[in-house]
């Protein structure tokens, strides 16, 4: 279990290697506030429930009917239903808007694509959510550091510096991988 979480958290980070939410995290890291907290809670519940439900439907209905290639559509319909339900609950109880589509849907697809059973799928989805969560404080810290160093309000230069720093973070995460030393591997 822990190896799957670590895989999606560090070795093959859902954000940095798969590219899920690469752009979204740079936007969300601007403000670490209550909205982000509720957004995380809502999306975590939605992703985990949708992954589990989609997996059951794929196994029980799509595979016996030979329609497994339709799984993204089934996952989308389940995701939208669960997302609307949880969104309504959060909006009524807290008043925060927490709508989000792209990142959550991609995490569900990745978890369904790369898992062998239901528990595996839910753990993979949890690993992806954690990888998104762990990158947000890092990005926020980077953003603040760049803002301190560059008081001039030039968003483009800041954004390019953030991208360069992200590249360095990816390189540092993959530093244990020395396969490129062997000629012809890449």
């Amino acid at each position, binding site marked *: 279990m822990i190896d799957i979480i670590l895989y999606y958290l560090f070795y093959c980070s859902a954000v*940095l*290697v*798969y*590219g*899920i939410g*690469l*752009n979204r995290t*740079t936007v969300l890291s601007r403000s670490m506030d209550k909205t982000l907290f509720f957004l995380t809670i809502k999306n975590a519940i939605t992703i985990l429930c949708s992954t589990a439900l989609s997996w059951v439907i794929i196994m029980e209905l799509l595979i016996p009917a030979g329609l497994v*290639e*339709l799984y*993204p*559509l089934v996952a*989308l*319909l389940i995701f*939208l239903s669960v997302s609307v339900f949880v969104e309504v609950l959060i909006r009524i109880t807290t008043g925060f808007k927490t709508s989000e*589509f*792209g990142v959550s*849907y*991609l995490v569900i*697809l*990745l978890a369904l*694509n790369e898992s062998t059973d239901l528990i595996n799928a839910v753990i993979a989805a949890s690993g992806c959510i954690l990888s998104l969560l762990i990158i947000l404080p890092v990005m926020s810290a980077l953003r603040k550091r760049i803002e301190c160093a560059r008081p001039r309000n*030039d968003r*483009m*230069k800041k*954004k*390019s*510096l953030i*991208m*360069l720093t*992200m*590249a*360095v973070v*990816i*390189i540092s995460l993959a530093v244990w991988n020395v396969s*490129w030393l062997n*000629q*012809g591997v*890449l």
Partner: protein
Amino acid sequence: MRRSGEIMNKKSIYVYIAATLAMIVPAPGRFACGVVLVLELNLLMLVGTLVRAFINRFNLQTTGNVLILSVMIAVTMFMRQILVTTVPEMAVQLGFVLYLPTVSSFLIGYMFGEEQQSLGRAVSRNMLHSLSYSVFALVFFLFRDVAGFGTITLLTGHGVYEKVLFDSGKINALVFFATIPGALVCTSGILILYVYIINKFAIVEKAEQEND
């Protein structure tokens, strides 16, 4: 007027960078992959715009969002099935990446905007933006393919054709551009270059205004 033009330019470069981060950076740095993704992006933009016009025409706004998303996912699945039957190795290589353009902010932004236009105008405007981004994306993929792998890959009827330009093993440093950090550095480089050019133009324009 000039100020609004500058803001438009800055906005469009943000859209390009956001789309690049969402779609191009995680994709394999092969020109053939770029061609497939660009085709998919344009197909999705065309179909999405038509569905959006259909929804507006028949007042289906209540179920509109679900309908657009379902159609776009269905188009992606259709595209994937075509790839599986024609170029299976490309379908395997792209895998999960095929779904990135479908949920990217680039497409979603056009599909769920408040603006209502006639079908002709909406198609021409969206396709123009999509095609201009496609040119940028193809150049980006071509650079990564040539610099990172020393090849140009093309899609043919018999699969992926690879034209070897030079032995990439001899220039190890350039292999970096085939990786995700390499793609990020490229994106950042484009942004820095763009800012540099914009600033130079601003200086020239200011000098001209002072002379007048």
